[in-house]
């Protein structure tokens, strides 16, 4: 819980990791490259005082994780999003089991999400069932750029992907977090293309598709799809830290998202340990759209911030929130309708 200027904010961090990207676990140069790539994101976009050493970043302790999120970082509930990368790391980068073991030692703090890969075929469907039962899954994280032997990526519209989505529906795993990475296959298409999200969101209206990183670097494609598909959400991991280094750009991202979607379909995330929730939460609560952009984008009210920081994710995951932070469920004015004339300065 975070309190500022008499306003309370219940914090759900929708995307956290407990990974091992250390040299000892790196299986090859790809693992090394992956850890270093993450580390560059971390040190490029964090305030200087929050930058870790590469050694600590590669592998941090469970104590550090729990302290950073819940004691220092104001987080009330954190959602583990696994990223297996078993072709890059000996024991995987961050598996459901590793997350689950931590969650069981800290009851009530974490939600454990699973993962699946359509290339695992029939056998994987059975594994998903077992995983869902073992960890009481409410969501999964899918990484379409994952390598698997000679295959260098997959699409949500692959035949087997539909089978897995059907299985999710059957198991009550409603929240499908999609991370678009630089998919290798097929190389001659745009790797970050989110068109496949459009298809599955239409085919599975009972599932929620939370697009991680709000589709960045294809914010516009994500917005276009989310406008048409009410069950598509935007996860703000990676977008959040721009609030510090490039606040005007952050204002534009949030402004675009609030225009094309609305305040009920955006969820806060730190992507810990890439970024620390403490400074993200503090800066977001203090943040306002710069005055010269307000005619285009409007302003961020405490209620909008409350929804983004926790209430929207709480709804997706049926998390009980204290009455002191609830926002009345009034019909939401989602801003001007798409297609209406842009505001022209007088």
């Amino acid at each position: 819980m975070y309190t500022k200027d008499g306003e309370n904010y219940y914090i759900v961090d929708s995307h956290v990791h407990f990974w091992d990207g250390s040299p000892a676990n790196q299986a090859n140069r790809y693992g090394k490259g992956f850890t270093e790539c993450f580390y560059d994101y971390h040190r490029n976009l964090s305030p200087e005082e929050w930058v870790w050493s590469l050694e600590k970043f590669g592998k941090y302790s469970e104590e550090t994780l729990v302290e950073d999120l819940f004691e220092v970082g104001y987080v009330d509930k954190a959602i583990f999003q696994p990223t297996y990368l078993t072709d890059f790391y000996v024991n995987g980068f961050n598996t459901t089991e590793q997350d689950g073991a931590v969650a069981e030692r800290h009851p009530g703090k974490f939600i454990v999400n699973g993962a699946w890969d359509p290339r695992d075929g029939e056998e994987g469907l059975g594994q998903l069932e077992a995983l869902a039962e073992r960890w009481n899954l409410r969501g999964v994280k899918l990484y379409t750029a994952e390598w698997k032997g000679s295959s260098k990526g997959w699409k949500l519209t692959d035949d087997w992907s539909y089978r897995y989505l059907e299985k999710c529906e059957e198991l009550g795993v409603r929240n499908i977090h999609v991370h678009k990475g630089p998919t290798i296959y097929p190389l001659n298409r745009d790797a970050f293309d989110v068109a496949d999200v459009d298809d599955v969101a239409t085919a599975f209206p009972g599932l929620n598709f939370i697009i991680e990183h709000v589709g960045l670097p294809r914010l516009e494609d994500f917005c276009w799809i989310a406008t048409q598909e009410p069950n598509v959400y935007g996860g703000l991991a990676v977008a959040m830290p721009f609030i510090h280094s490039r606040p005007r750009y952050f204002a534009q991202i949030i402004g675009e998202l609030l225009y094309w979607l609305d305040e009920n379909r955006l969820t806060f995330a730190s992507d810990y340990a890439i970024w620390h929730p403490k400074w993200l939460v503090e800066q977001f609560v203090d943040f306002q759209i710069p005055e010269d952009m307000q005619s285009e984008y409007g302003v961020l009210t405490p209620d909008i911030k409350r929804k983004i920081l926790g209430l929207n994710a709480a709804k997706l995951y049926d998390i009980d929130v204290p009455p002191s932070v609830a926002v009345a469920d009034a019909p939401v004015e989602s801003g001007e309708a798409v297609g209406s004339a842009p505001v022209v300065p007088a």
Partner: protein
Amino acid sequence: MTATVTLAERAWQALSGVRDPELDQPITDLGFVVAAAVRDGEVSVRLRLPTYFCAPNFAYLMVADAYDALLALPEFDRVEVRLTDHFAAEEINAGVAAEAGFAGAFADQATGELEELRRTFRSKAHLACLERTCRRLIEDGWQVDALADTTLGQLPESAERDSLLRRRAEMGLPTGAEAPLFVDDDGAPVPAGRLPERLRFARAVRVSIDGNAGLCRGLLRTRYGVTEQEGVS
């Protein structure tokens, strides 16, 4: 030695015509060109990117475009372009050097060449330029309603206008004074009723491209400890 310096400058100039297709900015401005060395009729160029996992198709396009730009110069007998610190550098470098095409470089993975990809991003770049131009007009007091009837000839001179005309020429769209300003990817005028929506989407495209360019510059600076050349509005 003066001649050598001039040749290196010629090479640099040619490379400044190569753009990152995704960010729509010259690779020389972005800091992707480390060095262009000239020796005995050979030019040798080293490229670097913001991350180890930058999308390989865009990386390929930049290496291939740099190679073609240098090969077109009569001053050089031999051209070498080498991408470094990238997970697919070996395949890309070998494929470009052998002029094998993209599908040749990634025989197991790619299912064709990159023309469609290039078209998609040219179209995005055009849309972003169109938005910048219209934005400028609106700031100068033009009404959105009037944009549908505006022709290129009515545009006041500006950097935004020049940039838009260049993109239109690249896409094979009309660039004459009588041609309508607001056209879709095929050159058809966008009717007044649909224009605000299209302009609104163009803004999202522009925000996205500018944002990505800023992030890529930042990551490159972090990765290599270089000073950033601020050029993004």
